[in-house]
């Protein structure tokens, strides 16, 4: 194998970030925004007094949390084309591709985790506030929208962001369906040029710098929120 050749990183830098990192960041942001919306709805369902709703959401969340992400990625990658064919009444499985499959997978999967965070957030609000809101004549949606969810969201903001950092790291698992995210782009270069060691080290360093910086930011935010309270 000879010595190390770190020039390979410089040569492929543009491609790695333009194509790979864009994929990774876009996937993270899309899965985060949709995941939080679905997760909040799931959390409201889980805490609902309507038993079937609570049961349905609880089942979904426990299912997602009991299956490893890699398996979920495979499932959706193979299933989505068939579900698409069924919905559109097409004869052949619909061609979906790694990108759409990844967005759907991560949204559905992360929704379960965001749900648990939002559930903890909602549960952190004193029961008396809900009673007070009902006493003032607010209905369920008003109570949730004006009283409970804004506070729950603020209480849980650091945890939601930490989960997003985890999501950012987890998107590297799209490697298993050969999508060209940051890791995928790097591994393609690595395999082409026989520079696995250099590329792996570089990828690890980039992920570390970004995640570390973000987690420091979250920590500062957490301290600021704690002061406001």
């Amino acid at each position, binding site marked *: 194998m000879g010595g190390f050749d770190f020039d390979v990183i410089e040569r492929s830098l543009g491609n790695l970030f333009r194509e790979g990192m864009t994929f990774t960041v876009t996937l993270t942001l899309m899965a985060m925004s949709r995941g939080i919306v679905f997760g909040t709805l799931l959390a409201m369902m889980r805490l609902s007094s309507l038993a079937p709703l609570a049961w349905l959401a609880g089942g979904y969340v426990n299912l997602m949390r009991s299956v*490893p992400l890699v398996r979920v990625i*495979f499932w959706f990658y193979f299933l989505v084309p068939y579900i698409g064919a069924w919905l559109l009444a097409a004869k052949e499985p619909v061609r979906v591709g790694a990108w759409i499959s990844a967005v759907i997978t991560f949204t559905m999967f992360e929704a379960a985790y965001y749900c648990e965070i939002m559930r903890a957030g909602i549960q952190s*609000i004193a029961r008396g506030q809900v009673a007070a809101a009902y006493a003032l004549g607010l209905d369920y949606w008003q109570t949730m929208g004006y009283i409970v969810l804004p506070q729950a969201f603020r209480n849980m903001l650091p945890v939601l962001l930490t989960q997003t950092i985890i999501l950012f790291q987890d998107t*590297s698992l799209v490697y298993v369906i050969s999508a060209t995210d940051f*890791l995928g782009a790097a591994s393609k270069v690595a395999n082409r040029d026989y520079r696995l060691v250099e590329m*792996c080290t570089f990828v690890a360093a980039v*992920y570390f710098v970004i995640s570390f910086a973000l987690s420091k930011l979250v920590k500062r935010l957490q301290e600021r929120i704690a002061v406001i309270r």
Partner: protein
Amino acid sequence: MNYNWNWGIFLAAEPGGTGTYLKYLLVGLGWTLATALAAWVLALAIGAAVGTLRTTPMPWVVRLGNAYVEVFRNVPLIVQMFLWYFVLPELLPKGAGDWVKQMPPPWGSYVPAALCLGIYNSSVALTIGLLELTGRAKAMQEFSFQVFEAFAAATVLYLLTNLVVVLGMRRLVARVRAPGFIGAAPAAGAH
């Protein structure tokens, strides 16, 4: 939908000649549990040691402990797996590196995987060729083209394992819950 369901596939022989697909998957489950167990023991030992280091009064030891935690928490698991598998043998002295690279399968993948892992993520080890449960389901799917049967079986095996954990955790949560918040059960059973 024109998918040919064939649940009998599990009783058919797999092409490697080790027996049926069912046995093939169960051996995979065995590797998953073995990896998880080894990784868990290792993680508990290292975690306890590093955690203790971080509470000592010596600032540089604390900083070392913090650095350790930050490095491992901020690099995706799959990337760490590649580091252990591809990069570590290159960094070791030549003799040791060659010894690691030449370990007979599946130990060559098992050792880096067990070193690198915590319990929930053991299925990521398939990316470095450890034929645990997910890896075997994927292989079965490639040999037999019965995608959904293979993944359904692997998922069910995994679900059963993890459901036990989730249910246990739920009982624990119910026992330690503080009263007075929306999440707490109404005061009836409290003491």
